[in-house]
């Protein structure tokens, strides 16, 4: 006897287009070309500023959260190292290279570390909303009313603490529910960074824009998950840039290289040099346009 119902071989969403209505299909290579204000490859540095409560909570446990039985001093402090030391190394590295970035910050970062947020803003960088703290995770186990309240609380707290209301949103672990896109749109956000299905901005059905932050190119994926060295990570970033620059030249359309950085990962003393060398290399390339997320979305919208 099979334990599969007859419906298992019926496919009600088998139709042209997706099996959902969140966004429409298109082939990136067949779209009208995108032109950036300068260069052909937009290099988007996005830094996550994360505060992990020593008591984990939320819809699911965020990557990087506490591991040992309470009290997990080891991970609480090793993560906070990023906010105390690593992020400052990033700010100096960006200033030295003459580039600006997006900083996806938990509301708790803006409240707890105002000096850091002031320096981010003073450096000409963008604040992207990144939930309340690292317990502020979202998935479809969360009641939509609770999710709406969580997003509203994060936006209100970030605005109150930093003086800035972000136009961009990054969910923790890029995880959403089926309700998230509408909740973000209701909050007046312009874009989110969670969907890794494309390499250029595109618009969801509800009007929100997706600015894809490729998780495969992140320091978390390459260094923490795949256990590669900082030099191997930098080599992959150079290979990616070279490919995208060639593709942009051949197609006549702009491309984008998202570089997702985590202060407690890439901001360590023995890794930061690889980032500084990469930034110096790319800043010297005529194809590169270093831009914040909001600038990339704005440039894309003028052409879209």
């Amino acid at each position, binding site marked *: 006897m*099979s*334990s*599969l119902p*007859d*419906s*298992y*071989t019926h*496919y009600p*969403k*088998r*139709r*042209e*287009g*997706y*099996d*959902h209505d969140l966004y429409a*299909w*298109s*082939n*990136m*290579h067949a779209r009208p070309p995108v032109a950036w204000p300068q260069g052909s490859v937009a290099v988007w540095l996005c830094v996550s500023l994360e505060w992990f409560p020593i008591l984990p909570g939320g819809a*699911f446990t965020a990557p990087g959260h506490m591991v040992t039985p309470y009290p997990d001093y080891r991970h609480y402090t090793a993560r906070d190292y990023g906010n105390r030391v690593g992020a400052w190394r990033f700010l100096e590295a960006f200033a030295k290279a003459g580039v600006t970035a997006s900083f996806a910050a938990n509301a708790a970062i803006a409240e707890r570390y105002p000096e850091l947020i002031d320096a981010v803003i003073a450096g000409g960088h963008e604040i992207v909303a990144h939930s309340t703290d690292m317990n502020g995770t979202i*998935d*479809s*186990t969360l009641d939509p009313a609770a999710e709406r309240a969580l997003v509203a609380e994060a936006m209100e707290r970030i605005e109150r603490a930093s003086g800035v209301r972000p136009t961009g949103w990054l*969910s923790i*672990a*890029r*995880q*959403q*529910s*089926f309700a998230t896109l509408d909740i973000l749109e209701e909050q007046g956000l312009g874009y989110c960074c*969670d*969907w*890794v*299905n*494309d*390499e250029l901005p595109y618009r969801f059905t509800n009007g929100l824009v997706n600015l*894809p932050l*490729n*998780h*495969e*190119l992140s320091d978390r994926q*390459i260094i923490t998950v*795949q*256990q*590669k060295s900082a030099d*191997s990570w930098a*080599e*992959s*970033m150079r*290979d*990616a*840039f*070279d*490919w*995208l620059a060639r*593709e942009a030249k051949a197609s006549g359309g702009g*491309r984008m*290289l998202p570089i997702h950085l985590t202060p407690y990962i890439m901001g360590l003393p023995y890794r930061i040099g690889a980032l500084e060398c990469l930034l110096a290399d790319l800043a010297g390339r005529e194809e590169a346009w270093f831009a914040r997320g909001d600038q990339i979305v704005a440039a894309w919208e003028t052409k879209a």
Partner: protein
Amino acid sequence: MREGASDPGLYDYHPYNTRPKITWPGGKSVAVWVAPNLEYYEIDPPVHPKRKAWPRPHPDVVGYGHRDHSNRVSHWRMAEVMSRHGFPGSVSLSVALCQHHPEVVADAAARGWEFFSHGIYNTRYAYEMTEAQERSIIEDSIRTVRDATGQTIRGWLAPALTHTPRTLDLIAEYGLDYTCDLYHDDQVQEVKVAKGQLASIPYSLEVNDHYGFFVYNMSGREYAETLIRQFERLAAEGERSGTVMCIPLHAYLIGQPHRIGPFEEALRHIAADGRAWIARAGEIVDAWRAQQ
């Protein structure tokens, strides 16, 4: 297979060093085929008692989005690189892609690629299917690919590598010529089936890009070097009796911007070597079958 027996009885044992010589067209020593998986994963598939489709609650945004990258961006990037160096694809196809994104299937067909079935969706698993259900996915596969491309499928790679004890017998009964689900050899081998004939063509999990990047954690350059080493060894050993090298791919992995450049160099190396018979799966099975 012998259901319930500890040896499933899939094939006979043949020592690698005493086999009849297999020769490939043009005197090449290794048949090289590239197997792009053109897949569709459902965002909210039904529950299966033996396998969870997504690690996170639906929608698993990163898991779904990562795979969707194939159908919006990286299929064309991967396909262009293959075409540039003369490699046709033999496609492991989630046949529902013919409905969801016919543009991707049409692009592969226009490049002269061969299609075989990888089930309806890569989120519908064959475990526990009744014979009627399993026949329905085989018949659906044959009909759907024929309607979309005019091709009659000749091979099978089980959806998400999920099987029943009757799968191989059934696909042979429907006239399919090869399975990609058995990993016991570097040469084409006969599979024991209830009726008719079925060949096992070497696919590969070991040099599958998914294993390279997510099991062995290789960089793009390390994976390219792995392909070259795999090729060099199989090309040398194929002088004795023709070997097969498969390069199984997923565009959302190999077509990422940091991996595609090194991959192109591996294809350039293999194409320039001179010992490779670059072919489609069906051609390799036919050339082997003619020597039995």
